């Protein structure tokens, strides 16, 4: 069994608010796991139960096969990078990093060497004598990360690690974080509400909604084979057509009916927007329904009012009953 973490049917309520209901997860050693979902769905609560800041009302949390749900945060070898970084303002960057090492019974020489190593890992050498107030947001995050990495946790938890960064920096840090995770080989669990971020970074994703785990799997698996309409819609847009849906990027448009076994409908172009890498086309089908398509830039341009055929391969349809 190679699961570093197993969460078994945990539930947590705050008063009458069922924040997390019957959530089960398993996280494999060395993977980057993303906990994804809309705001308020319970991601942070799950993370806090893994870290030990909340105790589940029901269910088990197993780290390396050992029950930890009732252990205090300082009794588990799990570390969190907080959303606001929570650096100690009265300590320098170096002292922040050493804080955790001192509790693990390290020799002083060893301590300096390890601090040096993690500072190097996060590329913060030379800024270690600064106080947090004198670090930028991105630098604070690196120090928070270094502080957690220094204690060599079995599991590193990151709550919305990119949300406080400006959008330009976000994409770069995303790559750096993934790269760092591969190099250190520590299992990361990242909480995010951004599906693109989750898909781009994670080996596997767990998607939550209203306290419930909707689906868990590789980004491809959950994108291509969603189990519920919520999953399908959260990960990308879908044209729902009764019992099934089609994603805009699988819809094709041509002036004449296609000859292959495609599902084809007559339609009229309603609008066509050039988005740089593609055209965003709204079409109105004969039965009056609207359909969105994303057409490659290389395709022919269509003008509003033009009569066309829209089509797609039946294999690309997502068949899910409306109630799911």
């Amino acid at each position, binding site marked *: 069994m190679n699961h570093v973490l197993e969460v078994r049917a945990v539930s947590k309520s705050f008063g009458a608010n069922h924040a997390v209901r019957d959530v089960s997860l398993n996280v494999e050693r060395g993977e980057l796991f993303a906990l994804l979902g809309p705001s308020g769905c319970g991601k942070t609560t799950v993370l806090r139960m893994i870290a030990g800041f909340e105790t589940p009302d029901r269910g088990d949390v197993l780290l390396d096969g050992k029950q930890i749900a009732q252990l205090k945060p300082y009794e588990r070898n799990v570390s969190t990078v*907080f959303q606001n970084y929570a650096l*100690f303002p009265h300590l320098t960057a170096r002292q922040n990093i050493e804080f955790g090492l001192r509790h693990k019974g390290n020799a002083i020489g060893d301590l300096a060497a390890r601090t040096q190593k993690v500072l190097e890992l996060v590329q913060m050498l030379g800024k270690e004598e600064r106080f947090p107030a004198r670090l930028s947001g991105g630098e604070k995050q690196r120090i928070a990360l270094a502080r957690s990495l220094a204690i060599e946790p079995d599991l590193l938890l990151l709550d919305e690690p990119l949300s406080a960064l400006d959008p330009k920096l976000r994409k770069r840090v995303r790559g750096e974080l993934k790269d760092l995770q591969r190099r250190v080989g520590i299992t990361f669990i990242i909480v995010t509400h951004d599906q693109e971020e989750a898909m781009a970074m994670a080996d596997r994703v767990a998607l939550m909604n209203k306290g419930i785990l909707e689906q868990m799997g590789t980004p491809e698996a959950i994108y291509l084979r969603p189990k519920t309409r919520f999953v399908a819609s959260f990960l990308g847009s879908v044209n729902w057509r009764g019992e099934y849906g089609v994603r805009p990027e699988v819809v094709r448009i041509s002036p004449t009916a296609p000859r292959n076994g495609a599902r084809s409908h007559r339609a009229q172009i309603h609008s066509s927007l050039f988005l740089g890498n593609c055209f965003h086309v709204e079409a109105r089908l004969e039965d009056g329904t609207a359909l969105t398509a994303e057409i490659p830039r290389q395709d022919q341009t269509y003008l509003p009012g033009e009569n066309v055929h829209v089509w797609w391969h039946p294999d690309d349809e997502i068949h899910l009953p409306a109630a799911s």
Partner: protein
Amino acid sequence: MNQLRTWFLAPARLLTFGFFLAPLAIVVLYSFLTRGTYGGQGAPFTLENYTRLADPLYLEILVKSFWIAILSTAICLVMGFPLALFIARSGPQWRGTWINLVMLPFWTNFLVRTYAWMFLLRDTGLINTAFQGLGLISQPLPLLYNDGAVILGLVYGYLPFMVLPIFSTLERQDPFLLEAAADLGATPWQTLWRVTVPMAKPGILAGSVLVFIPCLGAYLTPDLMGGGKSIMIGNVVQQQFTSSRDWPFGAALSLVLTALVMVLLWFIMRRGGKELI
């Protein structure tokens, strides 16, 4: 812009001058004058008021006053920090209640409260009569008119000045820092010493200064609870202005005391009290 600034600062300047600098100048002047035969003061200018201070009698009282003030401040800190921590950690709906309770004594005159303590502590007071009634003691305990009683009175009087500044620094502490400490393996006790206390340092310093200074200059408490036996420097100053009718010497004494306090404050600020200002 600059004119506006001048006008806005004018009242503060006037106040500083009228209520602080001008009286101080008068005190400085008096301290160099000679005492009149029937009270009052006048020429010639002299340094005698300062040289008289070298008398071992006054030095002894000064040293003792420092000791009593230091001890009272330390006791206030040991009692006040846990109290401030308790209030800061209690729910927001309770905090106001606790703070009001801490400040409640201010609603009654300090003199009246000191007399209340005397009624409790004296030989025929509540505590001694109760203990004697219960047969626990045969002779009344010497609870009043000693150094211990003075320290008790000072701690009682100035404890709120320790609690309030510490509370205000603790209240502002980010609760995530406590979680971060636990996350990094620190037990609650280690977190207290390595995060909570160091971060409350500005409040601890401010509280200690606010308690220490009035304790050093106290005269009412040592007068009443010390019963004249446990005399502090404040009582000596008071005597010069009242029974001894030696205003110049009183002025010199209080100036020396002020100078000592200022040197001490300067020292504290240099030793990491930059957060204080």
